């Protein structure tokens, strides 16, 4: 793989990755309604986007859902990972192992449909959850995001030096104190990574939310999907550009923080 072939394949790969995104951004500043025909520079779609109450409220719902799902998923995923790495024998260990990783390979349509049917049956039998809305979306997102958090937490817990926990126990700390004073601080960076992943996964999900959401609780992907189903629409380009901007700024800040932390270590 030397000579011209490799660089060419790599350039092609990156053009493939970035060309659609670049064109998305460029045409968000297009004055014409025909998304792909250039009609002069304009920011009118950004203005229209900010006046779109439906999109603004859906974005707000999505952020709330993502925040609560990521937090719950981090708690449940971490507990699951902790139980599986630290308790060698207990009833139901096998089933917990299977349940915690299975959501990773479960098609979204199945997760969404089965959870909706559960919510409907539960409502019939015990009266809760009454109807569907933000709560049911949060429950659904927590369940599939917890699997991702558990995988990250599990690998960190496994690679962690257990002599730290042993030392704390030998010095007389109870199991709860060992967890909060030793284990948690050590695995904290992995949990932050897990939380962030869960947050983005929740923010990004269309299929599961479409099944389990109810009237008045449309998430941002649901609103975008109903808009673009009928074809391209320039205000979605503007929205995409804003999201890309956010991601770039977040990555730049994360990179800067990491570099600073590395310099401190040196």
């Amino acid at each position, binding site marked *: 793989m030397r000579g011209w072939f490799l660089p060419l*394949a790599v350039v092609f790969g990156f053009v493939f990755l970035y060309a659609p995104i670049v064109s998305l951004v460029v045409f968000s500043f297009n004055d014409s309604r025909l998304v792909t025909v250039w009609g002069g520079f304009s920011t009118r779609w950004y203005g229209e986007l900010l006046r779109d109450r439906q999109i603004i409220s859906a974005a707000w719902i999505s952020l709330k859902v993502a925040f609560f799902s990521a937090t719950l998923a981090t708690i449940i995923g971490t507990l699951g990972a902790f139980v599986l790495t630290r308790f060698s024998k207990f009833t139901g260990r096998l089933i917990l192992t299977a349940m915690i990783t299975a959501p990773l390979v479960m098609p979204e349509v199945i997760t969404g*449909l089965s959870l909706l049917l*559960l919510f409907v049956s539960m409502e019939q039998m015990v009266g809760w959850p009454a109807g569907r809305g933000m709560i049911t979306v949060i429950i659904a997102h927590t*369940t599939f995001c917890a699997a991702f958090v558990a995988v990250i937490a599990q690998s960190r817990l496994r690679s962690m030096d257990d002599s730290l926990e042993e030392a704390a126990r030998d010095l007389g700390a109870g199991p709860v104190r060992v967890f909060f004073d030793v284990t948690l601080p050590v695995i904290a960076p992995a949990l932050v990574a897990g939380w962030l992943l869960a947050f983005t996964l929740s923010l990004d999900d269309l299929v599961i939310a479409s099944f389990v959401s109810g009237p008045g609780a449309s998430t941002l992907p649901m609103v*975008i999907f109903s808009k*673009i189903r009928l074809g391209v629409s320039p205000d979605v380009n503007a929205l995409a550009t804003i999201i890309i901007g956010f991601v770039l700024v977040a990555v730049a800040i994360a990179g800067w923080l990491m570099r600073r932390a590395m310099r401190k270590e040196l």
Partner: protein
Amino acid sequence: MSGGNALTRSAPWRGTAWAIGKLGISGRTLVIAIPMLWLLVFFLAPFFVLGRISLAEAIIARPPYTPLFERGPDGSFEIIASLENYRFLLEDALYRNAYLSSIWIALVSTIFALLIGYPIAYYIARAPEPKRSLLLLMVILPFWTSFLLRVYAWMGFLRSNGVINNTLMSLGLIDSPIQMMQTDFAVYIGIVYTYLPFMILPLYANLTKLDGALLEAAADLGASPMVTFFTVTLPLSLPGIVAGSMLVFIPAIGEYVIPALLGGPDTLMIGRVLWDEFFGSRDWPVASAVAIVMLFLVVAPIMWLQSVQNKREEG
């Protein structure tokens, strides 16, 4: 550090701990119970509900399916369950074709993702340090933007008056636009594009571990770079290829959004069929039966494959 951290020192925490102790539940049981109960209720139980509703019949009511039990006139319970929905799935060629074509589309997309992803992973693994991190970041970056919007970006690209057709026409290469949207081709592109980072990352992780001495040894023994690649690098990177391919194939097979937005009306994928059955025909029992068959035909083999792979890695 005396007395633990702020949380374990706080009054409500101690109160709760004391109350739990009084109930005779050990802390250990409680820690196990939280994730266990959550997943039993919200992950495992839904499949039983799914199975039960797949045996019901669709009716116009809320909820739109027949109950499982019915009280007879003499007060006895009657179980109403039928395999009618499954018979329907078996007889209607639509469903069989949808399962088969999902597997086919996922397979073709995985192969394309491998062909595009492998050179990139190889190049990044060989790159010197600052460049390597930058390229890796560039691979991951699109993944952090919205999945839906990345699919949407291709809609603007592939349309009849989209970027590709406009460019080709203005260059005079074609006279009339090529139909690219609403074809299987567009679905392949969408899947490859969306899941490419999942292919590149495991491949990269595998290829960086490759011992350079092996390549030198092959070269010293007179192997051409081409021969070295096919006899040393490629076989050694097989675990990376398998891992990356699984990460593309698995989500691709149940995909709904990509065929719905980029595919044509005749692009059959099982996720889309299930969606239409549920949201379009409002036939919950048939949608449930489609999901159950999908669980046994698609999900179960994948989980089995993964457990075999995990055992091999541990062993």
